[in-house]
């Protein structure tokens, strides 16, 4: 047990936990986006996608528990790292300047992370933990996005997710030790592309629902 604590309690160990759990969330987001695209095929297609998904029980519950555990690891470790990093420089500089390494995404990781957590809770309360006895998921979604405030809020949240992914994706490869001049430029660009796909893919959905549903 001792080597285990020494490994995952160390700075690199904690980052490895962030990297692996983060990669799982990128996988999850990809699946989630693929599923949501059925919205473009109309309310019935979306409802039937939701039905098929729920037909996968009890497998779905296992996935949900796994996602919850991953989220707890990612959040607790992330906050711990953030706290330690704040302590590592008690006296701040009077002048701060970026030399070209930092990006908006990298500089805001802990903040975008906390915002995403708040959004995920809100999102689950909206669409997941609701009474669905006399209604369909499509009805819930289209009623919600009839409210422009919801549309704006969701788009803003997706932009935050995109920035988090833009730094997180390439960064997790670096943490896992996969950085080589041969392929790092590709991974770096791929992170931007993936964050754009998530940003546009998820971001347009609320707009589409509010305008055409």
């Amino acid at each position: 047990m001792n080597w285990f604590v020494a490994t995952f309690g160390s700075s690199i160990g904690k980052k490895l936990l962030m990297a692996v759990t983060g990669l799982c969330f990128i996988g999850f987001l990809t699946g989630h986006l693929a599923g949501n695209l059925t919205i473009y095929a109309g309310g019935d297609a979306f409802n039937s996608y939701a039905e098929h998904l729920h037909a996968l029980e009890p497998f779905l519950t296992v996935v949900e528990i796994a996602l919850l555990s991953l989220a707890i690891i990612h959040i607790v470790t992330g906050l711990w790292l953030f706290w330690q990093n704040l302590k590592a420089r008690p006296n701040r500089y009077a002048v701060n300047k970026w030399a070209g390494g930092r990006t908006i995404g990298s500089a805001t990781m802990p903040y975008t992370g906390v915002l995403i957590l708040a959004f995920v809770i809100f999102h689950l309360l909206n669409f997941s933990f609701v009474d669905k006895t006399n209604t369909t998921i499509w009805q819930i979604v289209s009623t919600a996005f009839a409210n422009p405030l919801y549309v704006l809020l969701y788009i803003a949240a997706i932009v935050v997710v995109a920035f988090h992914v833009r730094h997180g994706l390439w960064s997790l490869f670096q943490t896992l030790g996969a950085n080589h001049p041969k392929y790092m430029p590709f991974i770096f660009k791929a992170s931007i592309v993936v964050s754009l796909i998530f940003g546009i893919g998820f971001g347009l959905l609320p707009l589409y629902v509010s305008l055409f549903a």
Partner: protein
Amino acid sequence: MTKNINLTLKVWRQKNSSAAGNFERLEAKDISTDMSFLEMLDIINEKLTLEGKEPIAFDHDCREGICGQCGSVINGRPHGPEKGTTLCQLHMRHFADGDELVIEPFRARAFKVVKDLAVDRSPLDQLIQAGGYISANTGAAPDANALPISKETAEMAFDAAACIGCGACIAACPNASAMLFIGAKVSHLNLLPQGKSEADKRTLGMVRKMDTLGFGNCTNERECEAECPKEISITNIARLNRGFIKASLFSSEK
């Protein structure tokens, strides 16, 4: 083309490590653009001494960019605004007449300010010690090329060995992490046959020491690589991460 410029300096003054510091405004008049940054500070110090005031304490030694002693943060940039340049090799021609320069010491919990701009970077020595020894035979120098090392490996080790231990990577890191420094040391020693036998022990030793010394955690901000006067690449940090995974999960090292 030599010319003379006037600058306004805001220099961090701090009596000792426990005193509270503050910025002092100083005028640097008639500074030749041929001077190095440290020569400019020398001129200021001469003037302060003649006026019976306390000169600015700052670290320096070789003044030719090889010892790693110098280093302050100029307008938010460790070693100043020039890429791949130590503060002693930074020339005043990179500044314009009338510029205001804010000069601060390297700041990190692990680096205590000794006085003014002079900081105690002995935690870097402790990191080196935690890296342990290498195994080399004593006696006559071995024949050249008796130990085959590929050119690629030699180059990678040499690039890492260019680290002069100045600590600018830590000063530049938003998290005050020492990953570039130990990444460079681990790469330099673990890549070569002389250091390979102790590679796992060295990697774990240095990472654990870094954690206990109060350095922060790397979040891949890449500011270290951008500010390092020897342009050490973060591929060395990736190598350290690989080495850590191997040492922790695939070796008997505890």
